[in-house]
């Protein structure tokens, strides 16, 4: 029982990480209908720059804003060089475009900062914490991560209430409406991608300091996709809950089902879980139902 809880909590904590990446996807999808496959690459990208700056001797508090700038610049570049030219294309084309972007960032980041694994320590406590008189062990780091994720979420929810936030939701509904809000579409996209960039940065930092900054992060980030299917592409809470479910689900599966398959199932379990889920509820946990009109 205790062991189960420990695994469960561990899984939930891991899930938080997925949620962080998924959040980025959702933000962009909600605002621009673009399925941003590059979110994972953005996580690595952010992490690379962050750790890179620190290695250059900058303090965390200097590196952070700098990296934020980088991510904003990136958002601007993406809008300028990619989105702007694909405005009226079908979603699937944009999706493929983001795959391209993903590759580009991947290559770009690494050709600047190299591809070897880097340790990242932003001073988060890593000592274990024992609950239920020692039966359950939790990494303090995971708690912190959860904390950060939580606060980020709160921030986002608050942001949604601001005029810009409302504008963003207007865009999600339809682009004409966006114009009426008074903020040009391009600007809105830059904003959204910047925010997604920040989220990516947070995720990157968290993951970087947990597993070290390395290209593998990208493929880890792919885990956010099943999360989206579970939570629905357009729901922030969905992203969080989905993340938790996936995280917990795959840990538990690894421990309790894995052995029958000789382990290593967590790199696909999430997908199969999501896939099964799709068949029952295509629009995801929190996604709205789509009525097709003729």
């Amino acid at each position, binding site marked *: 029982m205790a062991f189960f809880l420990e695994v469960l909590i561990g899984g939930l904590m891991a899930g938080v990480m997925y949620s962080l990446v998924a959040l980025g996807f959702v933000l962009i999808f909600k605002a621009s209908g673009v399925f941003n496959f590059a979110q994972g690459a953005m996580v690595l990208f952010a992490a690379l720059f962050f750790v890179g700056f620190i290695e250059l001797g900058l303090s965390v508090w200097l590196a952070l804003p700098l990296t934020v700038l980088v991510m904003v610049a990136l958002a601007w570049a993406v809008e300028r060089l990619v989105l702007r030219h694909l405005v009226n294309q079908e979603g*699937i*084309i944009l999706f493929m475009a983001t795959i391209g972007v993903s590759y580009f960032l991947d290559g770009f980041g690494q050709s600047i900062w190299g591809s070897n694994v880097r340790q990242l320590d932003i001073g988060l406590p890593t000592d274990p914490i024992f609950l239920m008189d020692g039966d359950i062990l939790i990494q303090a780091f995971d708690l912190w991560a959860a904390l950060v994720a939580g606060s980020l979420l709160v921030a986002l929810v608050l942001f949604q209430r601001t005029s810009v936030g409302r504008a963003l939701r207007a865009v999600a509904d339809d682009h004409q409406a966006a114009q009426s809000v008074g903020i040009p579409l391009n600007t809105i996209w830059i904003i959204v991608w910047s925010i997604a960039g920040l989220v990516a940065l947070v995720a990157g930092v968290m993951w970087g300091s947990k597993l070290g900054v390395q290209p593998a992060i990208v493929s880890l980030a792919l885990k956010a996709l099943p999360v989206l299917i579970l939570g629905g592409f357009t729901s922030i809470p969905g992203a969080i809950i989905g993340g938790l479910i996936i995280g917990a689900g795959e840990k538990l599966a690894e421990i309790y089902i894995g052995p029958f398959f000789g382990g290593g199932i967590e790199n696909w379990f999430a997908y199969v879980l999501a896939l099964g889920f799709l068949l029952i509820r295509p629009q995801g946990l929190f996604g709205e139902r789509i009525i097709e009109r003729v």
Partner: protein
Amino acid sequence: MLYRESGQFKTSYPADQAIFTIKQDRWFFALLMLAAFVGIPLVATDYLYTALIIPFLCMALAALGLNILTGYCGQVSLGTGAFMGVGAVAAWNLAFRVPELNLLVVLVLAGLVAAAVGVIFGLPSLRIKGFYLAVATLAAQFFLPWLFTKVGWFTNHNSSGVITVPRMTLFGWEINTPMEKYLFALGVVTILALAAKNLVRSNPGRRWMAIRDMDIAAEIIGIRPIVAKLSAFAVSSFFIGIAGALYLFVYLGSAEPDGFNINLSFQALFMIIIGGLGSILGSFLGAFFILLVPIFLTRVPPLIGLDMSTAAIAHTEVMVFGALIVFFLIVEPHGLARLWQIAKEKLRIWPFPY
């Protein structure tokens, strides 16, 4: 400019529906085939075969398969690598466990196995569309290679998990040298490409394109989505499976099942984006282009006197791919095939602009 179509009128539907309706095109294609079957074997070096030509054939076939699914039926898939893996593993097991089986039979059976698996993973397409489906196919991409590594039977419990191809013979013809392998692959690919062309210009093709262009209308004229989509998955996977088998048999020779990973999937996807969605020709052009880029990147920088570390080259390669994709999607979403088509049109109405 080179066309002299006037006087080439059609007095029957078969003539009017032929693949190449213009005499000049038929000549051109005939020359191309001549070059492929006779010319290349005369000039190509072993390096050329192994580094470019053979992988080109295999990947072109894979791209062709993916194009049927994505380009013609509009269903995005990121599972190409995995389905190639299915084909490869199936073919290897067949060849290994039933040695007396004819090589062609092996390929076909491997393709059928892949097709079956494809259909299974295609099931979600009945409920979900677009990105959802793309994600769903990732499940296949991660699950299948894992399966092959975990379940020893697939690799005959080989400790290293590596499968090595037994020596190949076709009707007593020993296929050893790169050239022989090339000719074999070429034969297979040619036949399959023709089959693909036939499919897309008759019922199945129209069914797929109808679903792609407007699935609602398609259903209302009596096309059953389940049939259309699953047949697309089946045919696509069949091609990809055979491509995978070739990839292992004539290109790699020996491989680990999880070598058929997501990068392969993306490579195939890039090939059809750059080559041209919904075009048989495009699949080949795209494959050629994508495979040329790395060779280009490794060869050219030294020539212009700057030496890049292998890592640097690898990274630039990835970057270039990314940039190319975005570039093509923006500039010519229909890829090289469309450029080719435009050029051809220009020649046909030369000297007029329209």
